[in-house]
């Protein structure tokens, strides 16, 4: 029994290693390409003024967006959860819906209204609007899990409402705030659409420029490695800041009884802030897309639109499925207490998440073109999506796994359950909703992906994103509008699913608690 266990554990580690090697292809590619350059050239490239400026600008943008997310995003989530506001469901949906809008579409729509929009502040504004849902989603979920009994106790001990928030609630959601900051920060590092349109040269734009010139893949790869290092430092910094966790979980049922604060002043304020965010991030893009569409309704080829939508959904769906499969060994490893290995693999995946689509695309072109007909098939494209967005599924997975209280596992263990059956019968049922969340996030992001899609899609296949690109490339924004609108509407469906309260989850936990 014991021996078998160990073997299984080795097998699992081998699987995890396999996944890591597979998803490290882009990084391996960068190192191979960068080695075309001599050490001296690399040093010159990294230390030249331009590179330093770009690096500084990228970090500035990262810090601004992350700070806005940490403060405003958390505040919005708190407002949604703890303050009595009118139309809470609609407001919640409208704060998550921006996830459905690709950053380049976001930027196009805003530029349609303010054509002179450009520069680092504009980019910070747009990127904050488009990454906020990650923070709101992460924090809201963890608010829902806080034991409200603890809040009652704190109140009865005479803590004021604000003291309860800062001393009882915030420490418990710190990990989620941190995760939200991580996702939004990595998004900023890898984003190409918004920054390139707003004329802000971040590392990603530099890489794209150097690659586009196609003939200097070495230099582009050196900058790519620089971006990778920046992401690595950011990820490590986050894990230090996040610190240790303290989370309380009481008996079932307490979570349902949140008493919302109904102070009229606070309610109005919270309502206004949240509604303003929804207006800027949802109403304006939709308004522009719809009005552009109406300006040009006759030229829409509905068969093209339908075909593009179908390929978008199927490839993104396949990509999400592959990402889910790839994240399973990691999740399993994490549940088995091999925390060091699991933590390291988690970090590697997160850092890779900062690599822009063009790097992943070219890496897979380089490796994939040797695979015969598999190259430029939907499978390789879906695989690219999985590589690009695995972090989203892994982040949700590990968040899910930390939600499972250690006591629960101990209880199961004292009942004579083995590690693997604890994983199967206790951990996974609880983690499942969050695993689903990961799949949805990958699906959603994959639908919006452009650079890797352009390189890896089957010849002749259009997705909604490539159609938008091909019209926008020749400045025909009105003709791009129906494709953008459809993309946003389709993406809104899984986004909407993300906001549905997870009743089913507590059922599972109830079952588990009787194990």
């Amino acid at each position, binding site marked *: 029994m014991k021996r078998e266990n160990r073997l299984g554990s080795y097998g699992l580690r081998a699987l995890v290693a*396999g996944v890591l090697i597979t998803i490290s292809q882009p990084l391996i590619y960068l190192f191979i390409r960068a080695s075309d350059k001599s050490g001296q050239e690399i040093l010159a490239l990294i230390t030249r003024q331009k590179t330093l400026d770009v690096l500084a600008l990228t970090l500035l943008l990262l810090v601004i967006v992350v700070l806005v997310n940490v403060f405003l995003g958390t505040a919005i989530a708190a407002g949604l959860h703890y303050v009595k506001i009118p139309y809470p469901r609609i407001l919640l949906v409208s704060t998550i819906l921006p996830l459905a809008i690709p950053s380049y579409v976001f930027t196009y729509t805003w530029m349609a209204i303010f054509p002179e929009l450009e520069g680092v502040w504009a980019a910070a504004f747009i990127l904050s609007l488009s990454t906020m849902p990650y923070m709101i989603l992460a924090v809201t979920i963890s608010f829902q899990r806080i034991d409200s009994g603890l809040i009652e106790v704190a109140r009865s001990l005479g803590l004021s409402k604000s003291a309860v928030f800062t001393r009882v609630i915030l420490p418990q959601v710190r990990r989620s705030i941190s995760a939200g900051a991580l996702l939004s920060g990595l998004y900023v590092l890898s984003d190409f659409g918004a920054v390139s349109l707003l004329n802000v040269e971040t590392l990603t734009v530099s890489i794209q420029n150097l690659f586009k010139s196609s*003939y*200097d893949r070495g230099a582009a790869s050196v900058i790519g490695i620089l971006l990778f290092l920046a992401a690595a430092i950011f990820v490590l910094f986050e894990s230090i800041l996040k610190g240790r966790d303290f989370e309380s979980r009481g008996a079932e049922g307490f979570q349902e009884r949140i008493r919302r604060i109904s102070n009229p002043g606070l309610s109005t304020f919270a309502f206004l802030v949240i509604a303003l965010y929804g207006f800027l991030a949802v109403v304006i893009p939709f308004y522009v897309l719809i009005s552009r569409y109406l300006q040009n309704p006759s030229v829409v080829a509905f068969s093209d639109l339908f075909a593009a939508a179908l390929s978008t959904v199927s490839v993104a769906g396949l990509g999400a499925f592959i990402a889910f499969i790839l994240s399973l060994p990691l999740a399993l490893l994490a549940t088995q207490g091999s925390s060091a290995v699991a933590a390291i693999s988690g970090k590697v995946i997160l850092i890779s998440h900062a690599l822009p689509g063009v790097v992943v695309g070219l890496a897979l072109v380089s490796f994939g*073109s040797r695979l015969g007909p598999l190259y430029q098939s939907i499978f390789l494209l879906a695989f690219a999506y999985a590589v690009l967005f695995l972090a989203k599924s892994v982040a949700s997975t590990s968040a899910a796994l930390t939600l499972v209280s250690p006591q629960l596992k101990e209880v199961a263990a004292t009942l004579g359950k083995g590690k*693997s059956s604890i994983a199967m019968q206790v951990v996974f049922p609880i983690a499942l909703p969050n695993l689903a969340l990961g799949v949805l996030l990958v699906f959603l992001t994959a639908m919006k992906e452009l650079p890797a899609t352009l390189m890896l899609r089957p010849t002749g296949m259009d997705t909604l994103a490539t159609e938008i690109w091909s019209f926008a490339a020749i400045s025909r924004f009105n003709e791009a509008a129906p494709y953008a609108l459809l993309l946003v509407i389709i993406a809104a469906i899984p986004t909407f699913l993300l906001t549905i309260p997870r009743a089913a989850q507590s059922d599972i936990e109830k079952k588990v608690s009787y194990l």
Partner: protein
Amino acid sequence: MKKSWVVAGVAVAALILGGVSWVVSGSDSSGEQVKELTIYSGRSEEFIAPFFADWEQESGIKLNVRYGDSAELAAQILEEGANSPADVFLSQDAGSLGAVSAAGLFTTLPAGVGGQIEDIYIAADRSWIGVTGRARVFAYRPAAVSVLPQSVADLTKPIYKGRVGIAPSNASFQAFVTALINEKGAQFAENWLKAMKANGAQIYLKNSAIVEAIDKGEIDLGLVNHYYTWEVSQALGRDIDVKNGFFSPGDIGNLVNVSGVGVMATSEKQQVAQDLINYLTSEVVQAKFVADTHEYSLIPGAKAPATLPELKSIGSPKVDLASLEKVQATQDLLTKVGLL
């Protein structure tokens, strides 16, 4: 239980590998009548698709077209190397063709192919053939520019400070700088680029963005290709307040670049690919390019696009377009002066 996960993982991996080997072994199409041709097209679908559709109708051969940015497609072809599924690469500019040609991935086209095209628009080693002509111009807003520049060197003068737009990451600008280096030397080009930067040249990502910025009044002039004023006006559905200007005859700023086409050395469909090139360079189709996409025909004596001077009378500098393939030096220079 744990074991079953491992087994499942192994099974999935085996399935995937099995699938791969099955797919790989299942392909073979040589020696049969050609029914399809795969094209990587750096020219946008909107403008080139009608030409492709006509040819499909005429030849009965299906075209699989992969659209993308010329330079990105060139990068992709370089990565694919001998494994490229492409038969033909149609590029917006000579630079991307040059990169593929320099890597030895194009075949040498026989003498008769594209026979009508003027020799200067064909690579000296016949690795690619020009399809349409694209003149570099300065686009400007007539009301705002009273003194027109006579040379690109004029743009570094104080009267144009902060008023000129350029797109250094764009292939067409890089081709122009390459020509500048080849004609006047690297030092001259470096000084010019530095002077442009010091004179507050505004950086844009695309030619069309420059034309739009001129129309909006953000800047007054910009270095672009000639057809962008037409294209932007078409896209906006209205006349725009932007005109094309040419420098003095012979100035390097009047460079005429080409969109062109080459056939991959690895293609097993050489004959059909050559037929396609002959079609695109025929008189009828060249006239259609002039009328429909506002580009220049490369057949000697052909009509110019509406409102523009004839190709001959532009006084474009004598530049060996094949030499524009050496963009590496251009890249390095643009990187060095901080424009990339």
